[in-house]
């Protein structure tokens, strides 16, 4: 049962076409103007979603509220099937004729409302916790509150059987996956949602960030199985070379690693439950570690393509290349001066525009009280990236110099989408590159690193290995944005554009 903001009782009869205004007395709908309905003898606005009607009512496509008839113990498919005071709750693992998990009307719990974060069913008023949130069952999106839509959700507790539930319709959904012990089989449910055109689509992408507090231990998924049983990440240990033939690229790493799917349009994300063997390992990769990993999933639900960038500037005082930089580099200068706004950001925008991605909110912040990080040894990159405070978009840190010298930038690949304050929450750009390169060239370097954070790999790395995307137009091409050299081009293949546009860092 849903407790909406507007609690109404509905009387339905007659034909529309009266002249009753909001608040006027009515005997049936025919007494109210065509944009209204008659509820408890009063003309009120038509509903857009069931919660507009209040507890125990549905809203039809004509905007009319209907009282639910489901009584205690009756089978149901949606929260709106059950009368006031009841909720539609999944019964177990049995499925109904449609193949969805069977549900029935039960007395509602005194728990959290729909959409509230949860970890167990018992925490939720409606008795269903999935994807880390309390979920109302639904038959269609009209049953769901504003900003949510009816989605098909695989239920981990029922071996992946499907139920239809109201799920956040836009943006990214984040939740913690339970991990019990240093090595554990962890289920990752991937839902399907209706898009704006009414078509059912699988979630755009998922990024799972694995962390351990002991940074001397490695962490990650040693194997991942897709819902159809395909191994997408084969047996991994820390220190293994990249498994280039795996459909999904993933490597264990010290302290933190990220599993981002899909890695290629050739192996799209599947609806259903992925099974991951999540493990901490000692630094040699030979034994299971002692640390219990945490796992945070972020699913991109919609096709939004806005990339927010949050620029941070370490201390650039007395930089030897202030002249070629264009002057003092700090937050104020970057937000106002042509060298940054024009010479750097315009080409950066252009490179992402070819993937249909628009730069959105840009923020600028000085970090002048971290002298230990001004001239950064890349080994200390996690200390700097942990200062990234923005969850949405990507944090971009400008340091005055980067060592070992010659390194121009650093990015976790892929990065922990949707997470701030972690050892991988951003990318780093070395300011000393501007001693011998122009701002537009640094823009290409930045775009390369941002794209790595978002899930692309070098189309060819320095050892000649390819990325996971099979695209003849990009493979090994030095004209590609993902070519490992700073002197590469800015092209993106169709497959690369697809993966970029799916990144969970986009809003």
């Amino acid at each position, binding site marked *: 049962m849903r407790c909406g903001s507007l609690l109404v009782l509905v009387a339905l009869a007659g034909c529309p076409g009266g002249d009753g205004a909001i608040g006027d007395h009515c005997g049936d709908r025919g007494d109210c103007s065509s944009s209204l309905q008659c509820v408890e003898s009063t003309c009120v606005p038509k509903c857009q979603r069931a919660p507009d009607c209040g507890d125990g009512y549905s809203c039809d496509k004509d905007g009319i509220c209907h009282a639910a008839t489901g009584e205690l113990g009756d089978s149901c498919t949606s929260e709106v099937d059950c009368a006031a005071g009841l909720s539609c709750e999944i019964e177990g693992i049995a499925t109904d004729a449609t193949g969805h998990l069977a549900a029935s009307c039960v007395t509602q719990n005194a728990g959290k409302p729909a959409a509230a974060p949860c970890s167990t069913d018992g925490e939720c008023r409606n008795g269903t916790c999935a994807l880390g949130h309390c979920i109302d069952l639904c038959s269609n999106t009209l049953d769901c509150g504003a900003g949510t839509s009816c989605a098909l959700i695989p239920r981990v507790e029922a071996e992946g059987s499907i139920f239809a539930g109201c799920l956040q319709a836009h943006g990214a959904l984040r939740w913690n996956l339970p991990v019990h012990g240093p090595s554990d089989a962890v289920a990752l449910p991937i839902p399907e949602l209706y898009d704006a055109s009414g078509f059912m689509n699988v979630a755009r992408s998922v990024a799972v960030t694995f962390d351990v507090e002991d940074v001397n231990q490695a962490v990650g998924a040693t194997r991942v199985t897709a819902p159809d049983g395909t191994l997408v990440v084969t047996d991994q240990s820390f220190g293994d070379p990249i498994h280039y033939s795996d459909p999904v690229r993933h490597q264990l790493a010290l302290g933190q690693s990220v599993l981002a799917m899909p890695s290629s349009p050739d192996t799209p994300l599947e609806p259903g439950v992925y099974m991951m063997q999540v493990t901490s390992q000692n630094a040699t990769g030979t034994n299971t570690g002692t640390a219990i990993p945490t796992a945070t999933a972020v699913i991109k639900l919609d096709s939004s393509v806005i990339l927010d960038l949050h620029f941070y500037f370490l201390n650039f005082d007395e930089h030897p290349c202030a002249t070629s930089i264009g002057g003092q580099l700090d937050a104020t200068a970057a937000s106002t001066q042509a060298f940054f706004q024009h010479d750097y950001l315009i080409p950066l925008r252009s490179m992402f525009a070819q993937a249909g991605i628009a730069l959105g909110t840009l923020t600028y912040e000085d970090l002048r009280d971290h002298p230990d990080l001004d001239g950064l040894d890349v080994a200390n990159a996690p200390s700097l990236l942990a200062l990234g405070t923005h969850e949405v978009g990507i944090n971009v840190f400008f340091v005055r110099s980067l060592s*070992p*010298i010659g390194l121009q*930038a650093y990015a976790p690949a892929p990065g922990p989408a949707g997470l701030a304050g972690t050892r991988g929450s951003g990318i780093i750009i070395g300011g000393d590159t501007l*001693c011998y390169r122009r701002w537009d060239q640094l823009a290409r370097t930045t775009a*390369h690193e941002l794209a790595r954070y978002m899930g692309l790999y070098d189309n060819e790395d320095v050892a000649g290995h390819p990325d996971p995307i099979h695209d003849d137009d990009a493979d090994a091409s030095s004209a590609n944005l993902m070519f490992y*050299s700073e002197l590469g081009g800015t092209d993106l293949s169709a497959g690369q554009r697809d993966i970029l546009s799916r990144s969970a860092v986009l809003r």
Partner: protein
Amino acid sequence: MKRRIILAALAGGLVAIAAADPSALDTQTFALTAIDVVPTKAELDTALMASGSGSQTPVQRLEDLAANGSDAGVRLRAINALPQYCPMITGCGGSGDPIHDTLTTLIGDYQSQLTGANVVVLRAAIESLGALQKPEDKDTLATLLNHPSRDIRAASARALGELRNCLAVTALRVRYQNESTDQVKLAISETLRILSPPVCP
């Protein structure tokens, strides 16, 4: 071997390489302009040999690029790569060793530089000289603790830590007393921590 290195006219070479059509560049140039990785010796060998360096061995080619490369980006990576070519067991030698001499000559020629890419070249040579871990380079690096550039002073302090030469402690302490930049003071502190017992009684 002591070679006199002529300060490169960076601008001309830089524009030439940076504006070039990527397809016209060779694997050597690409390997020495990697954005976010330091190529391994094996990867460099492959790239350098694929590009053809005449009669030069890969290390000779890198020494040449480090000393005379026209593009600062390529040059920095060549300087950075040199310590990888020291023998595994014995390391590079001191004076007279080609790699060592390339680096010390660079430092000598560029230590008066105060701005621009040449300062970064100097810093690269300092980092690589530190990576050779030759205690006898203490004086070369200690002198640079007083360089006008804070980045050079900090790099020198860190490189001194790699030498494990306890005689550097005095110079580091003196510089610390006179240093006003936190970035440099922190680098000196870290090196003094390294050069404390048991490394330096």
